[in-house]
């Protein structure tokens, strides 16, 4: 279907189902129960899931296929956001021109950075991209203040021109009148599910991005990128110049990052310089590796996992912990709360770090490998282990 193989179609359909049903899947607990703390099905977080999913999918096209580890992808995310907010300031709150321009700006920016950085490979490439990203961050933070509004972040003011804005247009971001923040709440008994326009807009773009990424993975071009990863020297000895391929991959992944940045701004019209900071670049590397570099679905899983930790664990404070352990004797309760509080609230980075270590040590193929192992174990137990499909030969996809 759609020009992709059967297995890929299955993956695409699974992702499509997860994305479209996310408001229900992510809200498994009734709204007023104690477990509602762990619900993630509110629009802002779901939007982040799919937006950072797009970011990671794009990063994976570069890192997963060519093996070039870029530590500066946040620069494209930030450039995309700034471009989108400028479109809101100058044209109107319609998201279409903003998203388009963010892709174009980020792609052009990645031509520049990619052209220079790809003269080197390995660690030197990583350091070059990191340097460029930090330069962009510092420029956005202070030097280019008229363009970026520095640390305060670029925002839309009522005094901005907005030349294309019609009379009755909403004063929030919208898609031809359909407000991004509009949502419909479906209440089923104690459960409440939020379906938001902004989320579905992002989710549909994520599915398109995912589909394009599948096509790239399966194309002759994708095969060439894998050849760059497995042995760049041999490739050049056969008389092929691999740099244009790597540059194309770099630009495509830069455009993906720009799209993600544009969508972030479309959901919330503010662009801050910290979006370009090296921690943001590191985050997308973490997402890709945590989920499974070089796999199709891995980056999306990794993005979801990290954003979940950041938004859910960081909000568990000592009061919440006390209410969980309230049934225990006093001394024990205080002790448990003390230990647990190091891993949640402001300590959520610690949890994330531990998870990352565990995944890298025990599941080098990321969460995807974990899923495969579970799948295999189940199959073995049912006695259906096919001798022809041994695990080692299976590519991690």
């Amino acid at each position: 279907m759609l020009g992709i193989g059967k297995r890929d179609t299955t993956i695409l359909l699974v992702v499509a189902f997860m994305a479209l049903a996310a408001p229900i899947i992510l809200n498994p607990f009734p709204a007023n129960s104690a477990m509602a703390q762990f619900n993630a099905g509110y629009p802002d977080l779901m939007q982040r899931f799919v937006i950072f999913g797009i970011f990671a999918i794009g990063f994976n096209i570069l890192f997963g296929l060519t093996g070039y580890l870029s530590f500066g992808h946040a620069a494209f995310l930030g450039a995309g956001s700034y471009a989108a907010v400028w479109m809101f300031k100058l044209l109107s709150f319609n998201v279409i021109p903003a998203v388009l321009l963010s892709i174009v700006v980020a792609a052009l920016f990645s031509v520049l950075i990619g052209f220079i950085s790809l003269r080197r490979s390995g660690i030197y490439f990583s350091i070059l991209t990191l340097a460029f990203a930090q330069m962009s961050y510092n420029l956005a933070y202070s030097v280019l203040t008229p363009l970026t509004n520095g640390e305060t972040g670029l925002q839309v003011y009522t005094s901005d021109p907005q030349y294309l804005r019609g009379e009755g247009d909403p004063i929030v971001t919208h898609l031809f009148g359909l407000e991004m923040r509009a949502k419909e709440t479906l209440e089923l008994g104690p459960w409440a599910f939020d379906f938001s326009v902004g989320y579905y807009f992002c989710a549909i773009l994520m599915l398109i991005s995912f589909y394009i990424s599948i096509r790239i993975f399966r194309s002759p071009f994708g095969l060439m990128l894998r050849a760059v990863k497995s042995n760049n020297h041999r490739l050049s000895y056969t008389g092929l110049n691999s740099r244009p391929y790597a540059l194309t991959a770099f630009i495509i992944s830069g455009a993906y990052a720009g799209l993600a940045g544009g969508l972030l701004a479309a959901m919330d019209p503010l662009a801050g310089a910290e979006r370009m900071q090296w921690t943001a670049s590191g985050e997308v590397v973490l997402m890709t590796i945590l989920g499974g570099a070089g796999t199709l679905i891995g980056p999306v899983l990794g993005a979801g996992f990290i954003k979940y930790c950041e938004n859910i664990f960081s909000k568990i404070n000592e009061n919440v912990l006390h209410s969980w352990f309230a049934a225990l004797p006093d001394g024990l309760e205080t002790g448990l709360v003390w230990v647990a509080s190091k891993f949640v609230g402001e300590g959520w980075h610690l949890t994330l770090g531990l998870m990352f270590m565990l995944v890298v040590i025990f599941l080098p193929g990321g969460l995807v490998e974990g899923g495969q192992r579970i799948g295999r174990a189940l199959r073995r137990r049912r006695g259906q282990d096919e001798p022809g499909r041994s695990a080692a030969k299976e590519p991690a996809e």
Partner: protein
Amino acid sequence: MTTRNFTRRGVMKSTAVTAGGLALPTIFTGSSAAAFTNEPTGSTVTLGFNVPQTGAYAEEGLDELRAQQLAVEHLNGEGDGGMLNTFSSKVLDGTGIMGKRVEFVTGDTQTKSDVARATAQSMIQKDGAVMINGGSSSGVAIAVQGLCQEAGVIFMAGLTHSNDTTGKDKKRNGFRHFFNGYMSGAALGPVLEQAYGNERRAYHLTADYTWGWTQEESMIAATEALGWETVETVLTPVGAGDFSSYIAPVMNSGADVLILNHYGGDMVNSLTQAVQFGLRDRQVNGNNFEIIVPLYSELMAAGAGEAIKGVYGSMNWNWQLQDEGTAAFTRSFGEKYGFPPSGSAHTCYVQTLLYADAVTRAGSFNPCAVVEALEGFEFDGMGNGPTLYRAEDHQCFKDVLVMKGAENPTTPFDNLEIVEVTPVEQVMYEPDHPMFAGGDLGECNPGE
């Protein structure tokens, strides 16, 4: 590379998915029944406390959180009631807000606008918060204030000292109790004239964001009015850690006063390093070299230790004040946590009480009713003397404290001493003052 086989099942599946995708937007056309965002319908009401728990301003943020929890206790009738007993408005009776028990959720802003907006969004969308309180940086406060305006909830700003919060970036749904850069300058001016005279040359090191810029602007205006000369202004990144490369050039600049427009951990580092470089032992132009920190806090003073002795600055409030409200708040905070509250803790505590009071007086949680109740509200007994919430810009007007690093502190908590309580008339300005011009409150937004 590609395979194309249209099976009947495959086509049907894809058709169903596409149709589902296309049909989805139509379910958004209905309208919801609530009158405003997060109308509390149960027996509780949720407030969101959005403070930095990590990063350069974490110390301030954690102290704000302590005060906010204390405010919730007092609103729910637990503890000794604190400032509820001294507050001039008597509608709050310790039964929560309008009979609803107060609950709260917390978030970590990391002192980053993006993160702060995400945590505030989750409080509004997931936890149903009707009011967001907090922010230990003006950049963050302005970003979150804009979000609250769009979402239709009330924003009670915590520690934010930039002129822009109630100037260029003011919003109808946002309120600030804390003072601002202009007030610091206006209060410090006369004291500095008396202490250091009219012929001084000032060098500014300024945190590079909205607060630093407006603070610098205000201090330049105040000092140049005294006849001082501004030698140089240098912007430094927030969270720089090491300021030695910025301090070395000060020595050869011919300046005899260093004004540090820094806050939090940055101010601790820059002041300590300036003292270690021996700036204060120098004689320039026949004057002793002096350092000024326009915005002081207890936590910074504690961090800087010996370095702050004799350094002038200003504060919104200090626990050493002698009025009833201050005594009540300091007592209940001290009993709970074992040390006196900081100025940032005070402002968050007061803001939470003011919000609860405004809701009760308005008889509704509707943001528009709350805005109406707070605009032009005059109150007393909150530690700052008679105070006005001005309707034109949602800024509180009250006395400002000029402080000085104590020469001989007796405890770790009285390392600052009050030099002067500048009366409110002296720090008053018109809403359209050039430093505050260009903003527009807009209309109140109840959301939904």
